[in-house]
């Protein structure tokens, strides 16, 4: 930093740790007045070395480790990893297993998007909507619990299939959940998309252009909100998705144009909740009978792992975008190499572009808009003219709420 005018740029570090984040991030903002001039960030503040652990375990153990990579996408990483190992072993998952994986993955998308919608509303100071979103989210959590036995860390996926069947008695309850969300869809769309406050705060905020989204290789709703037609479920037939009639959700499905701003990201996510309901309905209607796993006996699975040689990538469209696992096995029981690419890994890089030129009060909603689990603005230290003061997350949140109030009354 040069010793230029006193009122010039100052540095605002934010982070690094927030317990709610799977990837705590340290931000350094260059701020001029209220405007963000540039952003730098360093993730990995609590790199856990999961891949290192995995290479010392066998795949039947790793699928339970992958459940714990993320607290929200509990099934995403397990599907990716299991699919990679299944390709190496050259085994087929029974059709019913594919369908159950798809149903759980879509229920997960519903709960993840509603969780995000609540967080977004909270960041804007719209707490009644936050409470509503989290209340209706419980319905999907209940059904996930019914199917897998757990609200998080489902433990449903095993290499070669799934560990629990969806039995006939469970169908009415799942159906009830789908009806619940179908009835709610109009209300959610109305509340999130036609609200004046959300419109004011999110329209043209944190814009990511189509070119930037393409070249920075972002994924998921972040990419689709900028007009990049990229959805692994549609592009690449895997699990049951190849059988279904689905199309990628882009904001122009509802609006006239694609602007790639925070508002568009809300549109995509809310519409995807509706889409997930439809996908689950299609799966329930066409559920094939039969086995749910390639091999139930763990001992036989372990023997098969010892024979597995080769490498593969397993992919899945997580709620936040494409997740990818690269696995290499060399005839030992545990993988020789394993690389986890989560969706946020691809999306974080878009923050500097989105945040540039925005106001401090908009930081929380823009940071949250790519859904990095939660805003990581735990503690903010402002360094101004060599003096250092600490801003809490609450303080930043207050700034954001105040801006909403100003806009409402101004």
């Amino acid at each position, binding site marked *: 930093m040069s010793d230029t005018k006193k009122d010039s740029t100052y540095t605002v570090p934010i982070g690094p740790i927030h317990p709610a984040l799977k990837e705590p991030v340290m931000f350094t903002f260059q701020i001029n007045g209220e405007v963000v001039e540039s952003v730098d960030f360093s*993730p990995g503040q609590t790199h856990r070395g999961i891949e290192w652990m995995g290479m010392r375990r066998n795949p039947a153990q790793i699928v339970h480790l992958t459940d714990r990579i993320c607290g929200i996408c509990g099934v995403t990483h397990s599907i990716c990893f299991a699919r990679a190992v299944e390709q190496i072993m050259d085994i087929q998952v029974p059709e019913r297993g594919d369908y159950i994986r798809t149903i759980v993955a879509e229920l997960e998308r519903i709960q993840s998007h509603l969780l995000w919608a609540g967080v977004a509303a909270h960041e804007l100071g719209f707490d009644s909507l936050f409470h509503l979103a989290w209340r209706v989210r419980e319905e999907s959590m209940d059904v996930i619990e019914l199917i897998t036995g757990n609200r998080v860390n489902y433990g449903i996926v095993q290499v070669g299939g799934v560990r629990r069947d969806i039995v006939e008695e469970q169908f009415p309850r799942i159906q009830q959940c789908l009806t619940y969300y179908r009835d709610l869809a109009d209300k959610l769309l109305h509340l999130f998309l036609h609200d004046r406050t959300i419109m004011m705060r999110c329209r043209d905020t944190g814009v990511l252009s189509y070119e930037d989204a*393409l*070249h920075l290789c972002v994924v998921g709703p972040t990419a689709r909100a900028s007009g990049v*037609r*990229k959805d692994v479920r549609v*592009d690449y037939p895997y*699990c049951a998705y190849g059988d279904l009639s689905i199309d990628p959700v882009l904001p122009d499905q509802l609006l006239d144009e694609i602007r790639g701003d925070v508002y568009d990201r809300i549109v995509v996510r809310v519409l995807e909740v509706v889409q997930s309901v439809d996908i689950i309905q299609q799966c329930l209607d066409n559920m094939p009978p039969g086995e749910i796993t390639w091999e139930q006996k763990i001992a*036989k699975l372990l023997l098969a792992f010892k024979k597995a040689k080769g490498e593969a990538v397993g992919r899945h469209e997580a709620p936040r975008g494409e997740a990818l696992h690269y696995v290499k096995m060399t005839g030992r029981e545990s993988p020789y190499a394993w690389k986890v690419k989560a969706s946020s890994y691809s999306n974080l*890089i878009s923050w500097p572009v989105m945040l540039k030129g925005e106001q401090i009060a908009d930081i929380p909603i823009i940071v949250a808009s790519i859904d990095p689990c939660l805003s990581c603005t735990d503690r903010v230290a402002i360094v101004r003219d060599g003096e250092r003061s600490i801003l809490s997350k609450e303080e930043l949140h207050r700034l954001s709420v105040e801006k909403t109030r100003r806009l409402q009354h101004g």
Partner: protein
Amino acid sequence: MKPAPLTPQEIVEHFRSTFGEGIEEAVIRERTEGVKKLPNYNIWITVRQDLLKPAIQTLIDISFPHLAVISGVDIAEQIELLYTFTIYFGVKHGEYTLTIKILVPKSDPRVPTISDLMPGAVFTEREKQEMLGIEVVGIPDPRRLFLPDDFPEGIYPWRKDEKGIPESMIKNLWEVKRPKDRPAPPLPEKPSTKECSMECADPLEPKTPAKEVKKE
């Protein structure tokens, strides 16, 4: 927009005709899932180390790909770098993954940056530098990504040789005892009877029921 998308075979042919001997290996793997058994394709192409950037340029000329991740594997004298792309996204059921693989000798672990072609690659290139000890020549941002600043220099967690994580850095959870410098716990600690069984259970050596398996 380009006319009709190429088939996986045509993509491999295109690479072979462009680079000839530079393509060391090219494999197309087809897999089917679900009831309709629609095929999905994974293409794996191994190219000579110096052809990495021309190969990626060729891919960009076909259709701008999405860079998913660069993976790296330590295989004895060499490091395998796998650039996993997806191509033709947006075409329903038409996307392929395409992995360009190069082998980098450990004696000269240097690769050119591809961030001039794919700006989104910086992130994953930074990770390869810190995790595998690869030098990415020309990278716009050479800092560490995931490893903390106080992590020792010259140790690369993904290496499987003497530069990997040494035994002294590994902290096993079951060996960690209660710290000595803390106030007494609200309830007196029971003499740990479990200690023995905990130490015996080595998670790295899962007790495989080998006998049962051999009956097969």
